[in-house]
Structure formats: C-alpha cells, structure tokens
C-alpha cells in the first residue's frame, strides 16, 4: 500500500510554510552531500535528529523507512574498510581494515542518514499535492508540476487497479513461483496495467479539456507566514552558516 505516513500532523514542522521546507531541505541535502569535515557532518546529523523530533515522527516508522539505506550502508561497511588502501587499523589474519576505509565509511554513513532523516522531517511531512503547489510557487515549470500532480492523483488509482488484477489472478489459482509461466503472468498483469493506464489517460485528458484545461494548473493554495516559519528559516539559515564555517575553518 502506498501511504503518506508522515504527511499529516500538528507539529511545529508541519506548520512551517511548505516552500520554506522544500528550499531548506534542498540546501541541507546539497550542503551535507558535498560536506567533508567530521564536525560539519556531526552537526548535520544532530540537526536532522532535532528536526525529526520536532516533527514528532513515529520512531518505528522512521526506522522502517531507513531500512533500505541502512542495508546499503551495511554493504559499504562490509566492503570499504577492507578494500580501501591505507594505514592498517585492525588486522585479522590476512585481511586488514584501513583507517582510510573506516573513515570513508563513517563519512558516507553520517551523510546518508542525516539527509534521509531531514528529508523525512521536511518533505515527507506534506502531501505530494502540497509539494506540487509549493514547487509551482517556487517557479518549477508548469509542465513538470502538471505531470507531478496527475501522476500523484492517479498513483492510487493504478495501484488499486493492480490490486484488482492481482486478486483476480489469485482467485484463478495463480501461485507465483520461479518459472516462465509466473513471469509471463506478471508480464500480462503489468501489460494490462499499462494498457488500462493509457486508456484512462485519454479519458482524463478528455475530462480535463471539458473543464477548460489550457495547460495551466491554477493552484489556489496560499501559505500564510507564521511564527513557526520565521523561527524555522532563521534556525536553518544558522545551521547552513555553521556547517559552512566548519568546512571553511578546517580547510584554512
């Protein structure tokens, strides 16, 4: 099931103007992604944790959502320390983990987890529809916003469509296994999904034309500025400056 588990809430973060959240999520992500200094990255992680707490996200859900990233990081930890050349840090038999490898693994872990948490706290705390409105206000091209809105609108319909087809296949006794028959059945299900999607697209476009669609989505959403938005933006700006300073003092 496709669910927006963090989208609805009453926390301070949920009350911040979505445009500000999107902009600062982007700034934070870029800054963290290109950051190198441990001090700056630890600051980023601390800030991301504060944001998650402030957004009052369900801890269990946060962990669930982190599983793919954690799995990838685990792979890195299993490989990098042993393959990056450098001074030995821990030697077990013929293998030795290098300082450089461990440092690289730490750096990537800090970055990945910080950005992931910040993304949960800042962009996952709005519905994709709100995100579309925010992007529209931020000057993202009309066509992309339209594409995003229609995709989001029909995502759930297409998913329901698939569930229906799947149930029908189950009722007819389909049991997925590793064989050609199963793969072909999946192919027909997906093929049907695409055919139905394109049929629906024509009806959708016709309906949009009937309602006078001229290639423009009018978004009526207004985002009033509140005290939370001001504090949030001040805090995030301060964080950006502090992270930049940490990077800069280390290079001087």
């Amino acid at each position: 099931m496709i669910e927006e588990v963090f989208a609805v809430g009453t926390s301070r973060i949920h009350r911040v103007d979505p445009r500000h959240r999107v902009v600062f999520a982007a700034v934070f992500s870029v800054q963290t992604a290109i950051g190198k200094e441990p001090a700056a990255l630890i600051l980023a992680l601390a800030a991301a944790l504060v944001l998650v707490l402030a957004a009052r996200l369900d801890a269990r859900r946060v962990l669930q959502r982190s599983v793919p990233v954690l799995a990838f990081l685990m792979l890195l930890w299993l490989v990098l320390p042993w393959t990056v050349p450098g001074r030995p840090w821990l030697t077990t038999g013929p293998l030795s983990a290098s300082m450089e490898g461990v440092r690289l693994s730490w750096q990537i872990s800090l970055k990945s987890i910080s950005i992931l948490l910040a993304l949960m706290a800042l962009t996952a705390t709005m519905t994709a529809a709100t995100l579309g409105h925010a992007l529209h206000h931020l000057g993202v091209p009309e066509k992309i916003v339209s594409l995003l809105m229609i995709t989001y609108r029909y995502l759930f319909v297409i998913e329901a469509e698939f569930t229906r087809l799947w149930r029908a296949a189950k009722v007819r006794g389909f049991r997925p296994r590793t064989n050609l028959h199963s793969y072909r059945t999946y192919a027909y299900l997906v093929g049907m999904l695409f055919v139905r999607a394109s049929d629906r697209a024509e009806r959708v476009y016709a309906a949009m034309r009937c309602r006078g669609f001229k290639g423009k989505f009018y978004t009526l959403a207004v985002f009033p500025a509140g005290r939370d938005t001001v504090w949030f933006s001040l805090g995030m700006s301060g964080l950006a400056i502090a992270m930049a300073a940490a990077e800069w003092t280390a290079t001087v």
Partner: protein
Amino acid sequence: MHISEGVLSGPVLGAGAALAAAGTAVGLKTLDYEKIAGAALLAAGFFVASLIHVPLGPGNVHLILNGIVGLLLGWGAFPALLVALLLQAVLFQYGGLTALGVNVLIMAVPGLVCYYLFRSMLWKSARLRIAAGFGCGFLGVLLAGLIAAAALVISEESFLEVAGLILAAHVPVMFIEGIVSASGVAFIHKVQPSLLPGGPPR
C-alpha cells in the same frame, strides 16, 4: 536501483543533475499537453510496477521496467521518470533530492537507448518483436547498472568492488526483466498496438 543520498561526490551529483535537466527539457518539448496525461499515467504505472515483487528462487526482486517505459515514451521518459522518482523520494524516501539527477539518468538513459534500438523491430515479425521486448528488459537493467557503477566509481575509486557487487547482483534481474518485457511487449502489441511507437493510430 537507487543510489542513496550522501554517497556520490559533488561533481558527479552536479553533472548528473545537469544532464538529467537537459534530457528533461528535451522530453518536455516532445510532450505537448495532449500527451502529458499519458506520460503521467505511465509514470504512475512505473511507480506501481516497482512495488511488484516477482519470485526468484527463495527470494524475490522487484520489477524496474525502465526499458518499456523508454520504449513507450521516448524522450518523454525523462520527465516521466523524474516525476516518478521524485514521488518515490517524497513518499518512501528511496533516493533523495541531491541524487535525483543521477537516478533519473540511471533509469531514463537506458530507456531512451531501448527506444532508438528496438522501436523499428516491433513491426517486422513476431520473433523480432519478442527479441526487441527481451532486449528492452535486459538492456534496460544492464545499462542502468553500468551507469550506476560508473557514477560510483567516478565518485570514489574505492567503490569499484561495491559497484561490481551491485552489478553482479543485477544479472538475474536482467534476465527476469527481459522475459517479463518480452511477454509484456507481445501482450501490448496484441491488446493495444497503438501504444507502441510507430503503431497504428487508434
């Protein structure tokens, strides 16, 4: 096959974003408003297909189908996949904002290659059509893996082994995608040929 946030280097992220933006700009030119709804619905289909897990031995893998999306949309695959990946980042936190450009390239470039390579093979014979479908699935995943591996290795030479592991893990996926895409293309050809590039008008 998403590359997580915080893994790639700044220059790779920047170059990926620039190339993805260029591809998206071309794609948007080809998508007039009549086709936007179609592209959006296919983007939704791609999103849902990526949630479908097919069995592979004791485990399972999820479908990718970037080859078929490319075949059906051509350059339009860039904006469609951009939107689908953005939604995945927002709804599931798979991938994120900084790696979005690179992730779009990983999915859309193979799709575009499939479009140019295989669209003329769809209308000659049933056997060629099956081959084209298989090629879409197989090449779609193979090229995606290669682009992902290249992005990793250019970022950091020590990612070589990790990139190799990821590519190796996707070899069975290439065959499964090939089989599914071959049957999928044959199915679409039978049920609604107008969907395929160069197909008869409805």
